[in-house]
């Protein structure tokens, strides 16, 4: 089962890096970084295109699968101004038409560098669902409620024999903040040094499980 009760909230985890709140019909992802490869190409680095359309298809599939009634991106939907090309704008418009549900973007540090968002998207600093608040940077949390955040691209390191370790993208729960893994397929991750009461959740085939602390390096 992929549903967990966290601070009184039912949260479904998806192996693809998204979470769904069944009580509110809300699907949430973070750090999509659309147009990252286009940014690279614009700066003279030959990286092929493919990530944008693929990531939008993954997202549309999740919307369909969960029957979500709203979609929230917890920051960094876009990578950089240089990555916003006509093709990408078109792909995003097509995606928005296709899913046809309200779309909310929290402004991430990467988004903030864009002078103009494509497809009349607008961004807010945070978005509340009931008592829960969605933000981009985990450092902007307050004590009083459960937060969903992104920005860190969390990765957990697992001991695998004496000399080797395994790196896995993870959901990280620290105090009352749940940090989502980066959703974009052309994004990297960072190993987050864990604190004693941290909980991590990783994908294993079709499931997301909580990682036993003995395995964490």
């Amino acid at each position, binding site marked *: 089962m992929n549903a967990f009760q966290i601070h009184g909230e039912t949260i479904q985890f998806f192996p693809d890096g998204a979470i769904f709140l069944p009580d509110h019909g809300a699907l949430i992802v973070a750090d999509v970084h659309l147009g990252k490869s286009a940014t690279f190409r614009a700066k*003279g680095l030959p990286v092929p295109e493919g990530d944008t359309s693929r990531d939008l298809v993954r997202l549309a599939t999740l919307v369909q699968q969960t029957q979500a009634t709203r979609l929230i991106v917890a920051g960094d939907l876009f990578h950089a101004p240089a990555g916003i090309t006509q093709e990408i704008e078109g792909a995003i418009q097509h995606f928005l038409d296709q899913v046809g549900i309200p779309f909310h973007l929290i402004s991430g540090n990467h988004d903030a560098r864009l002078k103009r968002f494509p497809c009349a998207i607008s961004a807010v600093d945070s978005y509340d669902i009931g008592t829960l608040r969605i933000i981009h940077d985990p450092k902007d949390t307050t004590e009083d409620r459960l937060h969903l955040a992104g920005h860190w691209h969390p990765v957990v390191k697992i001991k*695998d024999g004496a000399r080797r370790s395994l790196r896995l993208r993870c959901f990280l729960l620290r105090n009352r903040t749940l940090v989502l893994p980066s959703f974009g397929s052309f994004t990297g991750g960072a190993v987050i040094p864990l604190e004693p009461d941290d909980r991590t959740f990783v994908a294993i085939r079709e499931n997301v499980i909580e990682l036993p602390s003995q395995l964490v390096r």
Partner: protein
Amino acid sequence: MRFPKLQPFFNARGWKPFPFQKETWTAYHEGKSGLLHAPTGQGKTLAVYMGPLSETLDQPNHCSVLWLTPLRALAADTLRALREPLAELAPHLQAEARTGDTSAAIRAKLRKKLPHTLVTTPESLSLMLTHADFPEKLSSLRCVIVDEWHELLGTKRGVQAELCLARLRAWFPGLKIWGLSATLGNLTEARQTLLGTAFENSVEVTADLKKPIIIDTLIPKEIDRFPWSGHLGTRLAPQVAKEVEKAKTTLLFTNTRSQTEIWYQELLELRPEWKDLLAMHHGSLDPTERAIAEQGLRDGSLKCVIATSSLDLGVDFSPVDQVIQIGSPKGIARLLQRAGRAGHQPGKSSRILGVPTHALELVEFAAARDAMRARHIEARPPLEKPVDVLVQHLVTCAIGQPFPADEMRREIQSSHAYRNLTDEEWHWSLGFISNGGAALAAYPRYQKAQVIDGRYTIADKRLILQHRMSIGTIISDATVSIRFANGSTLGTVEESFISRLKPGSPLVFGGRHLVLVRFHQRTATVKPAPKNIKGHVAVWGGQRMPLSTELAHALALRLKGKGDPTPEMKAVQPILDIQKKWSRLPDDDSLLVEHTRSREGEHLFIYPFAGRLVHEGVAALVAYRISRFSGESIQTTHNDYGFSLNARRGLFLGEEQLREVLTEENLLDDLIECMHTAELARRQFREIARVSGLILQQPPGRPTQSQRELQSSASLLFEVLQRYDSENLLLEQSRREILERQLELTRLTHVLHALQKRPILFVETQHLSPMAFPLWADRLQAILVAADATTRLEAMLKELNKAAG
């Protein structure tokens, strides 16, 4: 003397030119290029330099000679050696060095005007090619000299040098190119690689200085107590200390950085009074620490320096009168190179003292001596057309001198590495540096080089700057720097070592006893340890070098009883007798297979004598093939002599079955399957991505906004390319490189082929034979065949559940 202009220099010193020097000068004056094969010693510098010098003595101070050196550290010494004759014969001519170490002031000066002789590295030469006025500045160039060519041969830096030389040859058709090389098994091929299409009508000159090399061995007093295995063995340290005592200055070579640290501690413990007379030198030490050791060797103020291959290269340390090799020589050329570090003056003999760390290394030293006498020296195969180096060079050229495609292709193919470049490879490379080429659809809006008036051109200032910062092919590993709280650095270690330590844990690094204070973001802060605390000696990853084919063959001959009696063979005889009594002596005409049973199940020990990398590959291959029909999981270990398999059951194989698991059929597919080549290739991709310009070199300090936007990891790029541009030639290159570097695929294929014809001697043993014992004792180093991440995680979770009951 036929070179009157040079006479004053020799007369003043009372020297007479050696025949090889005259031979080189004559060839040079006939307009020939060539390769001078000479042991270390200053005679070779004069041999290659005096030709172009005498040609240009009366000329104005225009750049006439380029001296390429593989090592920045060598540049200063070389400059000193070249300035000597210059000062005397042509004081109006200047020599300067331009390397990564050169100060900004001198660099600026050199941007304006180049001196008569310029000492530089392949990277710096490439960088100069990006300046539009470089050909004009070089218009008086007569000769390029490539020092220590054997070091560059077989590396991407060597290929980079080949491409630079092709460029210079195209600009100046009469250019003479001379290489200097130590002894190699493939000197002709080395000359071909250096000269490319200029090989015809070139010469090879050999300096036969009659400089004898003596290989001695420290014989353990009680061979029956001497270990059969191990590689750190400090058993002979007291005897080594006595030898160090006898000599003036000793250079003590080890095979690994950890071993250097261990021997330093060991000698210090035996002779505490040498505290200020001992120093250490290895690649992970801070450059200032290394410079101190080098200076101590140069002025003779140190008694002994313990070093790794970081001191193999030609810096001149005249005071060194003794060289010691700890542990296996690994190769004949390597041992000779190290021996040459002593008695650096022409005419003096070089002596190296071998110190075995286990019994069979005695045979290795005897075998190395045999091979040296028979002149069976290893070859260094050159690299064949690495695509990453090519695309980097094409960008370099497009910046400096925009080029038409056809003309450039002829130039590229005039180098040895790319002589067989295909249409497909060429067009792909052009696409990669311009607009995406054949895979255009996958690269919308990508544009680097533009074709203007039929020439590939890069004019964007930002791209030019970016490329200049990224030139080169040496990619350093991700390491952690070790420093004191006051900020002074000691050197680097690998993250895997430091992350195992907790704050407060003791460690030994750079000969110091330290305590880890904290490890944060690629920096480990340490402080001196309180007295009497023993810590972990720092370990570094990186593979151990395999025994060379030539040395392995010489070793097999010795085991067959060939060769004159030597003290080493006499000492090791009791152990060989046990091997013969309990099993048989292995050799490389047949294939010895030992089978034995223990509490751990069954063991197979197989001895192809092909070096550790090949054995690792063959062991994995055989284990994979056996487990396919037995269903048992199999552990493998390997060393330079052979490999072993261990399983609960199913290893008692008949000849036919053995032949089946050693077959050449399906070799590549099976290897890719069992070695997880895909995973390994992903790691190899880091270097390729950097060289080809897919990953940018991050300058030190905090990255700027725009740099951060362009950060990505090699493994991420590998995935993206695999998914959206699977035909990308860089992916293919990384698979090829990993097979060659990790498994020595070419050698492995030869070995498997040869094994088909070797009769199999199957012996059932009661005890572990002396040859089998080290493989058994090493079993903890076994690589277990790994599965993909998910499967591994599942297994771990299952294990946890089981333990929880």
